[in-house]
């Protein structure tokens, strides 16, 4: 186990080094830079050139690269090019919001979609097509609804119509109650599509297992349906479900740009998109580095859960 962990950490470092190098050069291949993005319509080329000097964009590329790498090793990620704010601070400030939303969303998703998917599978297994169809069909519709549309509908209903939650306002960690009200609609929006996806995966996985011999054996031993479905069927169907939960969680942590935009949530998805649009190389590089770390870490955790669920899994 220790050997495995060390191996994974080594892999993590190599992956991140590769990602950083690739992103560093790929970013600079895109036409336009921070100066041209910031200057917009009406700035002359000589003025632009002065801005480039100021932003350090006229340094040789290899110099910029080694400067950045040296920074990473000492955990100094530099300042944003346009606004001169420390990148690490910006990410650390955006992260808690994204983290809170992601964790609540994923908990809601697991609590709702797994019973739902299991129920659908059980009904299908028992030949009661009506409820199964209803759940499957609903999940499909919700899954296919575009996020911006769902968000607008929920805003109109829950904020404007019922006045339950505000549509705007400061997002601050100082006041948990206010924060929860402020992020309630985004969480519902994001949960809806996650629930739909995971419920369908769960249904398929559980249905397959319900047709296995050992389920019939369990029944013949006189076990209750609950025990059969949850202990025998669901547990054995857990591997694909865990994989999808892991991936969903990773995606949620990356921040959902559209939801963050609509609700003006200062999460890290918005940070990345703003960074790309303003060609803020330092910000984008550091965020991508962070994403790489996150994904490798989540994959590692998922693997550990596999081992826990299914002792046959060998590393």
């Amino acid at each position, binding site marked *: 186990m220790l050997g495995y962990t060390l191996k994974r950490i080594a892999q993590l470092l190599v992956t991140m080094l590769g990602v950083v190098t690739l992103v560093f050069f790929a970013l600079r291949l*895109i*036409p*336009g*830079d921070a100066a*041209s*993005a*910031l*200057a*917009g*319509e*009406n*700035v*002359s*080329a*000589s*003025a632009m050139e*002065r*801005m480039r000097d*100021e932003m350090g964009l006229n340094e040789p590329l290899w110099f910029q690269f080694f400067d950045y790498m040296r920074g990473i090793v000492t955990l100094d990620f530099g300042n944003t090019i346009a*606004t*001169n*704010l420390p990148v690490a601070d910006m990410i650390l*400030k*955006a992260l808690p919001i994204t983290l809170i939303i992601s964790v609540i969303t994923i908990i*809601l998703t697991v*609590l*709702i979609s*797994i*019973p*739902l998917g299991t129920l659908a599978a059980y009904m299908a297994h028992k030949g009661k097509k009506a409820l199964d169809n209803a759940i499957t069909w*609903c999940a499909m519709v*919700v899954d296919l609804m575009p996020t911006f549309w*769902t968000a607008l*509908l*929920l*805003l*109109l*209903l829950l*904020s*404007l*119509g*019922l*006045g339950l939650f*505000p*549509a*705007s*306002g*400061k*997002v*601050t960690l100082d006041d948990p109650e206010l924060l929860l009200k402020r992020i309630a609609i985004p969480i*519902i929006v994001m949960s*809806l599509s996650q629930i739909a996806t995971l419920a369908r995966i769960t249904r398929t996985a559980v249905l397959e297992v319900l047709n296995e011999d050992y389920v019939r054996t369990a029944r013949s031993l006189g076990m209750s349906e*609950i025990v059969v479905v949850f202990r025998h069927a669901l547990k054995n169907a857990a591997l694909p479900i865990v994989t999808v939960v892991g991936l969903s969680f990773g995606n949620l942590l990356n921040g959902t740009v559209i939801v963050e*935009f*609509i*609700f*003006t949530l*200062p999460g890290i998805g918005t940070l990345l998109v703003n960074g790309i*649009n303003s*060609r803020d190389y330092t910000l984008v590089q550091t965020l991508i580095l962070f994403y790489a770390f996150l994904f490798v870490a989540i994959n590692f955790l998922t693997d550990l859960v596999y081992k826990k669920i299914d002792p046959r899994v060998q590393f």
Partner: protein
Amino acid sequence: MGIRRWGLTLLMVLLVVIVAACGSNKNAVTNEPASATEGSTVTPGAEPPVEEKILRVRFYDDPAGFDPTNIFRIENENIAFNIFSGLTTYESESGKIIPDLAESWETTDNKTWIFNLRKGVQWQGGYGEFTAADVLYTYNRNIDPATASPYASDLANVKSMEAVDDYTVKIELNEPDGNFLHIVANYHQGQIVKKEAIEAAGDQVKFLPVGTGPYAMESIDVNSEIVLVRHEDYYQGPAPISKIIFSIIKDESTATIALQNGEVDVIMRSNKEENLEALKAAGFKMNTVSNYAKSLRVFNLEDPILKDVRVRQALAHAVDYDAIAKAVVPNLSVGTKTMLLDWMDVYTDDVPKYEYDPEKAKLLLAEAGYPDGFTMTQLGTSASGINDQSQLEIEYLSKIGVTLEFELVDTPTYNQRRNAGEFMSAGRLLPAVNPDMILFSFLHPDNKSPGGLNGARYDNPVLTEKLEAARAEVDEAKRMELYAEVQKIAAADLPYLPTYASNVFWPSKENVEGIVINKLAQVNFFGVDIK
């Protein structure tokens, strides 16, 4: 069993929500105004206490900093406009230059300018009294290459500056400039900063602005809000509202709902037709300024087809921009036939105009040697995309055999290619305010891209001569005459085709008074009050 029952309960709640959401959809789209009034009565929002008036304003993007030397984008400029002052400023209604920190000025030849400064003006944050030294520091800072200000070129004509005494500034120009009062106005390079405050702010100077204007920066959270408090020692007296909270709401629909919910009092720039209609129907105040900025089509005159003036005129005759605007964005836009805006002092309406006439367009095309038309590629940004107006333009042009194709790239790429001349036709939004700056930068050959804004690469020696003469002319009537001739020649040569003039809306609650959007599309909050 417990877990399952709980899951089921949650599921039921969720289903109800989904069904309700779907059901409300129809109502929401067709009956928006009705539900809007309902919403605003359900949540009236917290009323500010009588002694302290707080105005909450929707701000539509992440703030990018408020240091005048390198400020960008209109929403940031609007904040700076309320924090800083210039020697002159713009009167909100008329767009005319009026005194600000300078009480009066003198010039005999448009070359030597003497400004008599207002006495007793106090800086925000206890930085003392404003004097001539602050003016010199500001302009020198903007000119200094180390500052890398994009607005340094606006001050390039300054030969020397001198503080005659604490309240008199004398500026000597290299070439006469009859429009110099625009250069020293409360805008970009003209906004006066305080040396001590700039130095105290260090590398955070973008977010720690200190000026002499009616409002001072209290706090800023770049992710959610900017808070301004009134400057109690403002030279015109304290503003009626004690605190302005700019709340960042990026999405237009969300902003509309926030106003209806009473979460904000004013929307800074509402720019979606459907939202404007909804708010109008719900009885909100539609503060607006019309004719704020012009959109131009830039023809690349180095293109083998577009270099023929007949082709450009044919394109102008082929499309009825006013009809398109009326059909698609009746609130936000109107068609236009002039480059300058009608409130500008040098504006003339007496220029060649190209009425909608497809037959004439076809004739002109045939004369130019393209009886069967050609394909024109328009470079655009993926952010603005191909909107409904463009779709109709494609229709119009197809009737004279011209195929309009779009090539969409992201904004930095777009700017780069447009500067480098790697396009056939492109768009441009004209900056408002200084008409001389517009004419000079878009029509003078010295300003050809990539060195300047003359993206069409236009060069007509006759026009250039008149343009230079206009700048030097001291006689006001002769100066206006020269500018009028410049506008005529430009409209005949048509390196840029004026297409639309836009209107700006700041919808507000009924009790918010005095929102006057000036010609820069900014609001001077000194004149705003809550009743």
